[in-house]
């Protein structure tokens, strides 16, 4: 077990280091000087001396090798550098906007699972019938609709039916809790529906496989109620592969929120990334990419541990 943990930790650090290196050098290929861009993009002018002073301030005057060593060294101390645009530490910028994204992602995940489990079970037990085809059309549709378009349709529908849409401006939970919940809930449903489609299809196929196992036949033979066989015996085992995918999806889900946050004007990290890219804010882009990678590897580690805990076969191997 110790060996397993050591190896996983080494992989963990290697992946993060490689992502850090990759994103650092990729962004250095960006045409133009990001510091100059800040001062001249709005039509303003900056003298050569001022520019040099600003570049020194952010460390962009140093040779690339030095900048790289500083970046990696900073990462080791959890220091992501300073945003060129806002001049605040990157970790602060991300920290102030991470909360809303996580709330949105977790709500979407819960909604996604609540929809996926019944749909997946329905597809599996009615396999091959017209009902299965209906479920399939539903789930494929969920994956085919662009989330931002669906978001606009939902807003249109809300306007047409209740004449109200969640406020564009951010509201604090303490001030107006209902409005705050609506602001999270509508985008979470949009994202969650899409997520449920993927999970429902996966759950269906893994449930079909489990239903043909001997222990399911045994359970039926000894007179266990069919619904209990499905929910208690089969589903518990069919969830295992689904958990792996849910973990991977959760990391991807944060990526998907980039677009959703834009439609609903939610000031999360997805919007921050789009802004960082349009401002060529190198330090901020780097910091955000590292955050995505960190979440991915952490979730991967959790999934592995969870699987080992749930499945004795994995533990033994």
């Amino acid at each position: 077990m110790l060996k397993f943990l050591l190896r996983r930790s080494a992989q963990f650090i290697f992946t993060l280091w490689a992502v850090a290196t990759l994103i650092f050098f990729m962004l250095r290929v960006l045409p133009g000087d990001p510091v100059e861009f800040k001062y001249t993009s709005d039509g303003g002018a900056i003298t050569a001396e001022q520019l040099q002073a600003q570049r020194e301030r952010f460390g962009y005057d140093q040779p690339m090798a030095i900048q790289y060593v500083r970046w990696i060294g900073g990462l080791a101390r959890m220091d992501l550098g300073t945003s060129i645009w806002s001049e605040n530490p990157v970790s602060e910028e991300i920290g102030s906007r991470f909360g809303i994204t996580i709330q949105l992602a977790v709500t979407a995940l819960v909604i996604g699972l609540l929809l996926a489990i019944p749909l997946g079970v329905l597809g599996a037990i009615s396999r091959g019938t017209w009902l299965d085809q209906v479920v399939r059309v539903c789930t494929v549709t969920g994956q085919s609709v662009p989330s931002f378009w669906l978001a606009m349709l939902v807003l249109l529908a809300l306007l047409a039916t209740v004449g109200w849409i969640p406020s564009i401006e951010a509201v604090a939970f303490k001030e107006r809790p209902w409005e705050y919940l609506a602001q999270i809930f509508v985008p979470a449903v949009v994202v969650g529906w899409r997520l449920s489609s993927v999970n429902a299809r996966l759950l269906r196929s893994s449930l079909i496989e489990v239903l043909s196992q001997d222990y399911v036949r045994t359970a039926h033979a000894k007179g266990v109620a069919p619904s209990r066989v499905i929910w208690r015996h089969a589903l518990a085992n069919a969830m295992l592969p689904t958990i792996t995918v849910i973990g991977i999806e959760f990391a991807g889900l944060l990526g998907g929120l980039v677009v959703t946050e834009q439609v609903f004007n939610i000031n999360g990290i997805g919007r921050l990334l789009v802004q960082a890219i349009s401002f060529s804010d190198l330090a901020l882009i780097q910091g955000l990419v590292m955050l995505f990678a960190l979440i991915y590897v952490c979730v991967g580690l959790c999934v592995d541990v969870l699987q080992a805990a749930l499945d004795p076969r994995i533990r033994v191997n």
Partner: protein
Amino acid sequence: MSGSPTFKSLKRFTRTQPLGLIALVLITAMLLGGSFAPQLAPFGPLDARFDAVLTPPNATHWFGTDNFGRDIFSRILHGTRPALLLGISTALIGSLVGAAIGTASAYFGGRVDAALQRANDVLLSVPLIVAALVVVAVLGKRMVAGVDVNLMLAITLPYIPVMARVMRTAALSVRVSPYIDAARALGFSHTRIIVGHMLPNLVSPWLVMISAFTAQTILLEASLSFLGVGVHEPTPAWGLMLSGVSVETFTTAPWVILFPGLAISLTVFAFSLLGDALRDALDPRTRH
């Protein structure tokens, strides 16, 4: 003709996978519609009519007009070709390169496999859309023959590790088959074993992934255009028709976003359904 194996398997596919048949019909219709867009479309995709700005759908403008008075139906029809071109080309390139890496990884095993696996982990750790956004930002725009090559690259690159992983898993199960051992025992070269004996058995996961990737590209391109980094004006691209001014006016002129969104959804739906049907039809475990 009716006796040929291809025709027979096609016939079986249409019988056992009715949804797959619907998908095939839809895709064929789109290919035809895209190819003959100049002949079929009632208006030019760039013809602005400032006396008919934001006209609701009517007999002349079936899907209405946008904020420049351009006919939305004609623009959607013209947008089919770039959408399918980008979708199929990224899926083909990404899946081929990924398949080569995945198969090599599984076949050679050992250190090659370990190294490629670690590289894969690194590339997979960044969400697809984030990776595509950064690549587009870094590379900028480069038009070759009406296609933004850099956009294509930005979408293709993140597919490679995904495909490599799928292919590696599939190839690992093929590699341990007795016929591969036999080929090795006969002293065949690596190339001959991989190309002649392994690849033909990996065609089905490859086909499934191609339709999945095509669907994903069309969605991804729409998202990137929506964020303002994908296809640029005045190209009649579906994602672009859903961004910018359309977003600001959609509450008063919903038809501007309704139809392009439907076109995207229908295309992605068709390719996903085809992939699903192919998986069922080609996987011997789920065939019965």
